[in-house]
């Protein structure tokens, strides 16, 4: 008898509806209103690459050891350097990073011995052209500057 009543009055369907209505309260809203609120990503987030510079004198930390280029699975880093006769070390001239093929695996960041190459928390990397995704040294040091809209 109870089963018949449950069947007629759609009790099991009502139970499901109760769950749905319980989740309608404003406390349960988890949608982020992007781009008004930008999500806070983790510290270790593997986003846009950046070439770090020494904060005191503004010189690049990169020692042109080429380890990042060797470690990259897609071979998209090209590092060129000239040898400095006075300090007997290599000076970085150009550093090309092809962001369109990058899979953000982090192997280049792990390989860098001086923490010059770092994957930051920037994830807004769109550009209007394919060539815009190939970053040179200047772009790598500055970082992407996505448009910030005012609402």
């Amino acid at each position, binding site marked *: 008898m109870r089963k018949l009543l449950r*069947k007629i009055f759609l009790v*099991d*369907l009502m*139970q*499901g509806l109760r*769950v*749905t209505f319980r*989740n309608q309260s404003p406390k349960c809203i*988890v949608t982020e209103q992007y781009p008004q609120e930008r999500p806070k*990503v*983790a*510290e*270790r*987030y*593997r986003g846009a690459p950046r070439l770090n510079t020494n904060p005191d004198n503004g010189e690049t930390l990169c020692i042109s050891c080429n380890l990042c280029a060797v*470690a*990259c*699975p897609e071979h998209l880093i090209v590092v060129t350097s000239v040898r400095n006769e006075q300090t007997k070390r290599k000076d970085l001239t150009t550093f090309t990073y092809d962001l369109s093929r990058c*899979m*953000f*695996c*982090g*192997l280049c960041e*792990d390989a860098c011995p001086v923490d010059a190459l770092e*994957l930051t928390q920037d994830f807004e990397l769109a550009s209007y052209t394919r060539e815009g995704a190939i970053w040179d040294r200047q772009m790598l040091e500055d970082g992407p500057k996505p448009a910030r809209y005012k609402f």
Partner: protein
Amino acid sequence: MADSTFLDSTELVLNMGPQHPSTHGVLRVILKLDGERVRGTECVIGYLHRGVEKIAENRTYQMFAPYVDRMDYVASVSNGLGYCLAIEKLLNVEAPPRAQVARVILTELNRIASHLIWLGTHALDIGAITPLFYVFREREEILNIYENYCGARLTTHAFRIGGLQYELYDGFEEQVKAFCDMFLPKVDEYEELLTGNRIWIERLKGVGILNGEECKQYGVTGPMLRAAGVKWDLRKAQPYSGYEQYDFEIPTCENGDTFDRYIVRMQEMRQSVRIIRQAVEKIPAGPIMGKVPKVIKPPVGEAYVSIEAPKGELGYFVASDGTTQPYRVRVRPPSFINLQSLDRMCRGALIADVVAIIGTIDIVLGEVDR
């Protein structure tokens, strides 16, 4: 089948094309229909074939690890675990205990995440749209844990050969424990939405039956095999990465139909929470990386290592020729082999059941096609 007379309908061939909301990716199923009943199916796959096995022969062992995540992109941590275990077997090293416990925690979180997506998309195909949203809300918490740990949410590249790269961050245990406490009531919520629901039961019970013997013949593993009554789980049969220390059960059911697979996967999520709770209590201190050389050149040989991925038995057959690049990496994809049984399960079903059956096999086309 009765002899056909001139009153019978002719067979209709219908294409459930690669672009379809319910085929979980680019899967093409050619249905031979007699009215609404399916007489035969043929799967055409390969739309997502990227040649991962060929790429493996041209990269070094460490370089190939990010590619492996992209096969089963829903549950990428298990792929990484299988690959690292295979290379560690070739090198004859073992990850240190701290790394093993951390691997278990992340892999079980991964299993929950994969089953959550399965639940959401399967329910969506059947018509219950609500679980999809709740499921992604829970998955957000898991992906936040991954993001805090290794920096990426989906293609995590979390493990390295020999152990872990990143130390566990401060607050890892608290976040995982908070997730476990938050999650179990949510599983009850999903069950409240679906398990007793008469529509759900009628759509799923008796659909896509594959009994134990047929599962073994077709090589089907994972929750499909357990729903057919075969109590077999690689985590218990051939434990890896320290699974023998944890106390958990293997859920099974008897009939092997779609409803049983749903029950098995829901129970597996609960058991995963149980494992995570045990593992989080006993994370030992110590190193996170084993003794692995910087340039990995395993001795000439081959090994096959398989793990219990959320979808079935994921195996890696790696052959090395002594150089820094593998000679052959073969991935035994559970979704590919489970998908073979689609034809067997769809005989005599209705078209709407075909959608339910594709959903219950839990395929990810990235793994089917590699």
